[in-house]
């Protein structure tokens, strides 16, 4: 009973929050609603007994990702009302609803369910985090490592991209030119620092 109440409550909240995220014209509202929605989703994870996932959800999404977006928003100065040109809003909703109906239809139809079989059963004796750890470092070790590398690459990429001058290629420049550009760069940085 408790589970049902919790499910419906959080479901309503999540849907509401995400609807705001999608529909609002205030970027700040969108961000906030999004962050709230993420946290509500972690509630489902806890209900479903995926404690570790729930925690990760809060830390990674609400902590890291949302913070990044917040920084991004400040950088782009999109805090004010956004003006977006829209075409055929009806088509968009129609498509969305259609997709939802189909997905739901597929998911609730009992075709697939009969054939599923647990390959890595949850061991009731150990806690969720422990069980995840055991599987992650045995069966999913390689994907895990790859994911780690991917994150590293993403991090470097983020830094490089954010810092790089897109219109100039250092590899193709002569030594003096690089020196000249870096001189200009430093003076510009200095000016910006003053502001």
């Amino acid at each position, binding site marked *: 009973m408790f589970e049902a109440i919790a499910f419906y409550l959080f479901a309503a909240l999540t849907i509401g929050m995400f609807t705001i995220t999608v529909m609002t014209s205030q970027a700040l509202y969108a961000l906030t609603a999004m962050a709230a929605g993420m946290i509500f989703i972690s509630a489902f994870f806890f209900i479903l007994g995926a404690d570790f996932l729930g925690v990760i959800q809060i830390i990674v999404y609400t902590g890291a990702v949302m913070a990044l977006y917040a920084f991004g928003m400040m950088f782009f100065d999109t805090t004010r009302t956004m003006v977006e040109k829209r075409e055929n809003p009806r088509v968009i909703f129609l*498509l969305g609803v259609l997709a939802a109906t189909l997905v739901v239809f597929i998911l609730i139809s009992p*075709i697939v369910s009969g054939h599923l079989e647990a390959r890595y059963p949850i061991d009731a004796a150990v806690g969720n985090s422990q069980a995840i750890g055991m599987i992650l470092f045995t069966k999913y070790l390689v994907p895990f490592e790859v994911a780690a590398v991917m994150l590293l690459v993403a991090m470097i990429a983020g830094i490089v991209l954010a810092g790089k001058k897109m219109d100039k290629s250092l590899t193709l420049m002569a030594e003096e030119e690089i020196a000249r550009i870096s001189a200009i760069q430093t003076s510009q940085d200095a000016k910006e620092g003053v502001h």
Partner: protein
Amino acid sequence: MEIYLYIALFAPLVGSLFAALFGATPKTMLTGIVASGLLFLSLVSSAILLNYVMMGHTVHVEMMTWIATGDLYIPYGFVVDQVSVVMMMVVTIVSTVVHVYSIGYMDHDKGFNRFFSYLSAFVFSMMVLVMSDNFAGLFIGWEGVGLCSWLLIGFWYHKESATWAANEAFIMNRIADLAMLIGIFIIYWNIGSLQYDVVFAEIANLPMPIITWIGIFLFIGAMGKSAQFPLHTWLADAMEGPTPVSALIHAATMVTAGVYLVVRANPVYDLIPDVGLFIASLGAFVAIFAASMALVNRDMKRIIAYSTLSQLGYMFVAAGLGAYWVALFHLMAHAFFKALLFLGAGNVMHAMHNELDPFKMGGLRKVMKGTFIMMTLASVALAGIYPFAGFFSKDLILEAAFVENHYIIYAVLLFTAGLTAFYSFRLVALIFHGEERYKLFGIHPHEAYKFMLVAMAPLLILAIIAGSFKLSYFELVTNLLPAVEYHIHHPMTYWMITIGTQLFVILAVLLAYKKYASWSSVPDGTSKLENCFCYKLLSNQYYIPKLYEELFSKPYRELSRIAWKQIDLKIVDATVDGIANLIYQTGEKTHTMQNGNLSSMLRWMVIGLVVLLVLAVAFTVGYNAVTMRAM
């Protein structure tokens, strides 16, 4: 004896190849002499074989396999029997004479060597045709002579009319060849062999309709080569070739191949008298039809060509009525005097600088005594006056028609005999008698080389005496052909008919002389006679060439053009290009979809997703429905 067979067969081929070696070099007398010599060798071999066959033997060799696949087995087999040896003799005699004659006739021609190469190749093909022991081998020769005829009619290839005539002859023959091919197919699939001996032994066991079809198709084949109506127009046009060619190919040998085929296939035609009657009727029709065209023609060679056509009609009458040996006999006699006539015409042409209109000649007997005598005698033979060759052979055909009770055919042939005599002597009278009209055109005629006349002499002798061979010939060929003697048993009737025919013919000769021997002017198309309908009809060959041109050539040309320009380019190809264009245009139209706008791309992505989902649902629902029903 086999060695003689091979010599007789291959000597002309060797001669042809030898001459071909010099094809591109300037004239050398050597080629003419070697080719003629080799042909003489072939003649001698044929004579030896004739002697051997007369003693009651036949020679049959199988050289090697030609085509063998499945059940089909066609060898290069050659047979020298009573029929083929007669043909061999005719072919070698006439061709040897023509070869020697050509040395003189083609003396000034650039293509001298080439000419001998073609001419000998023709003889080789003709020998293959008559010596083969199966229908496929016959077909080799059949097509071979067609090819050589094409080459020789178009020998003077810079002349538009010559090449046109060559192509016409070839194509018209091809039409008939197709029928012949079909006839061969029917024989093969019903008998399983193409060998004469097998086919003729088995033919009686076949159902009647099939034999009839075989007979019809083979005869259509024969019609093409022998220029029977309605495939006759090529023969007159073929006179564009050098005159020795006309003598050899279009008078003595190739055109008689059709008769030879019917004679050879006598076991087939014996079983189908109805077809035989048709052949005879057509032959009679062609005889009078061609003779009528010869009456008014103003081209010396064409007149002789029509007379050939007419005589071929006679032969087909004989063959169609079952008198095969008579047909073959007339073939032989005709070959001699007709070749002689043509060669004489060649002399006249030479003398007259290739002038062909007899109205522009006249009085040539003073300058060309030898030719005059020869042509007159040949015409006498052609007219069938006793005791020349034509009398014996042609009279036999008339008798055969009479005895077989085909009185209409008999009457037609009799009338044609009169026409024959008339146009032959019209020609002789116009050329050799009367005023010397050629002087108006500033021509100085001269007699041909002596050796040409000497070369023609054997033909002259044969034209005179061939009739006397009748008995020994009869004994010879009736070993193979049905020995039916055509005698009118009532002596009174016999004599009446014979003498009546002779009188009729002589009357026609005299009439021709009376009308034309003192001709003095060159008709210019204004006289009353020339403007009457009958004259125009005849001189335009019953408008048949024109009709063919309008009915077949032009529509075919037009249809071809339509097939290319309208159908091939505008329909077939345009459809293909249309499909390609459709795809291309679809791309052109829909590429705005790829406008680079990310937000519309995203929308397309979602649409794609929805489509995939719909498909997934549809398939699962459908699958379930099927499995449910299966359960």
